[in-house]
């Protein structure tokens, strides 16, 4: 599918916005205004590329914690994120029950996930099964880190989709680390895409710093899935530019040189360079986007700071569906 200049710019915008939101979270953390942040810096191309391959709001997603850019592209706003960082009541994922970045966005068919890694992989297959049973043409996209593909539940989830030819796209974001552990300590294959051959579905590795390459690869997989031809596995490879989370000290296990070297492939820079070269993005447009992002982030922080905390006793609910209060 050929992308229009406008869509390409929109993809860039989504990456940019997610990046600025993410950076602000680090600032808030340094300021002592929030206690925890887990960052998606370096992952924006993979996530935005994947999101744009979907019919957003129609297709389904089971994401993982590093998906700020994916969620942003699905409609999770900077304010939503700031609310979640601060544990405010109006946060749409959980009303302050879950840690930040444990997404859920019902309006975008983005399913609530937990911290135990790889549980969402099986859920994606279950959703895929439901879609198939209802004979609909939706697809499910699910994401995960490369380290988490060591988990048995990941294998079981992908296997289900392969056996039952379900409309699921399994995206692995290989950022070279699972906290401190490199891929060589997780798997004996060069890429998690290689795991596809053992499970009987197509597997592909794609440059996860190239938003358009990811878009193309995921689009192909979405098409396959929509036509009933079954699941695909795609590894998007990038580098985790930040520490694992604000609790992590990555100096214990990797050098500053390594990190600096890898920043050269910052996906935001790369997209910008490409779009500028193609003449699709002017300095003026970029400045405008940056200004808009800054404004949105400023407003989001302000709104979140002003927003109320949940009432303590609201923590008692809703344990069971009968206790859900809507509206």
């Amino acid at each position: 599918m050929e992308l229009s200049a406008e869509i390409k710019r929109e993809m860039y915008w989504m990456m940019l916005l997610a990046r600025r939101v993410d950076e602000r979270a680090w600032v808030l953390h340094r300021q002592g205004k929030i206690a925890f942040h887990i960052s998606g810096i370096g992952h924006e191309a993979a996530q935005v590329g994947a999101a744009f391959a979907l019919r957003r709001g129609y297709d389904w997603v089971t994401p993982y914690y590093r998906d700020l850019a994916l969620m942003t592209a699905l409609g999770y706003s900077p304010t939503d994120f700031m609310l979640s960082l601060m544990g405010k009541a109006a946060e749409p994922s959980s009303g302050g029950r879950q840690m930040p970045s444990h997404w859920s966005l019902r309006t975008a068919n983005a399913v609530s996930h937990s911290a135990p890694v790889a549980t969402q992989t099986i859920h994606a297959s279950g959703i895929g099964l439901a879609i198939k049973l209802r004979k609909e043409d939706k697809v499910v996209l699910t994401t995960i880190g490369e380290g988490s593909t060591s988990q048995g539940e990941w294998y079981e989830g992908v296997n289900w989709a392969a056996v039952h030819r379900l409309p699921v796209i399994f995206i692995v974001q290989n950022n070279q680390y699972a906290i401190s552990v490199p891929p060589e300590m997780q798997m004996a294959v060069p890429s998690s895409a290689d795991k596809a051959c053992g499970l009987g579905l197509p597997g592909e590795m794609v440059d996860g710093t190239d938003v358009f390459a990811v878009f193309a690869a995921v689009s192909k997989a979405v098409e396959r899935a929509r036509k009933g031809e079954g699941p695909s596995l795609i590894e998007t490879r990038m580098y985790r530019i930040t520490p694992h989370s604000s609790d992590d000290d990555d100096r214990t296990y990797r050098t500053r040189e390594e990190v600096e070297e890898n920043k050269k492939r910052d996906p935001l820079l790369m997209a910008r360079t490409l779009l500028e070269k193609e003449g699709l993005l002017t300095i003026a447009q970029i400045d405008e986007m940056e200004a808009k992002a800054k404004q949105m982030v400023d407003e989001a922080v302000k709104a979140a700071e002003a927003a109320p905390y949940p009432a303590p006793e609201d923590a008692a609910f809703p344990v069971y569906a009968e206790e859900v209060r809507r509206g």
Partner: protein
Amino acid sequence: MAEITLIEAIRQAMDEELARDENVFIVGEDVGQRGGVFRATVGLFEKYGGERVIDSPLAEASIVGVGIGAALYGMRPICEIQFADFIHPAFNQIINEAAKMCYRSNGEWTVPMVIRAPYGGGIGGGLYHSQSLEGLFTHTPGLKVVVPSSPYDAKGLLKSAVRDPNPVLFFEPKKGYRLIKGEVPEGEFTVPIGPANVTRAGSDLTVFSYGMMHHYTLQAAETVAKEGIDVEVVDLRTLYPVDRDTILKSVRKTGKALIVHEDNLTGGYGGEIAAIIAEGAFSDLDAPVRRLAGPDVPAVPFSHPMQDWFMLNPAKIAEAIRQLARY
């Protein structure tokens, strides 16, 4: 009214729910053409087809996890775990996912799902085909745990479970599958999840039990009745959430309580019931709260003398009743 077996009641419930609601489907190992290793799903594959009675790959985490995904999408899965002893690989999906989904998403996502699991010993199954596991699951807010003891309840409770908007773990006393028979009306009926059932009124003491042990308890109560001991029997039925009111009301009347389960004593479900009574009916108690339960060994051994040593039966229950009555 027809007299049917426990397992036939379960089969009927599934048959009727499959017919009633096209969102209902069954997934598990050998549930299809084989009709289940206990024959609980016999005929359903032929009647509803392989899309609604699905043979899963041999992986319990995926059986439950796929069920969760489908439930999130709006389906009503009935997941079969072939023996309760094999539910452990699905523990993460049940406890961390299904049970916490509603709460963690502040009610945005719910998991209407049933997990059926045959449990219990006395069938020559040894350590891994005899386990009683309710004690591991009656500590999980968000989950409902049901154990029927009669065909009527089995059918009515299973139908309620399928319609319940929450995950329901449905433990079936497999020794009673063909042993326990009872009258079940033809037409539509349900039994509510929640209330315990006073199955025998009495004045000297109360015995609380469920499943196969409730069946035995009624027999023991008849035996001691001839000796002049008037026993009240409560079938707890829904183990979680607990029906505190019915429990306390009965103890306040009789003044003495015996709790009977087949599962290991220490840390078992009986501890919770004893604690509720000890706290809530303190001034009404005429004797210590007694528990009669399986011994604290890992599970039921295979060899018959050892199995008999482990298992409770009406005679052992009658003896515990006599002792408590004498206090």
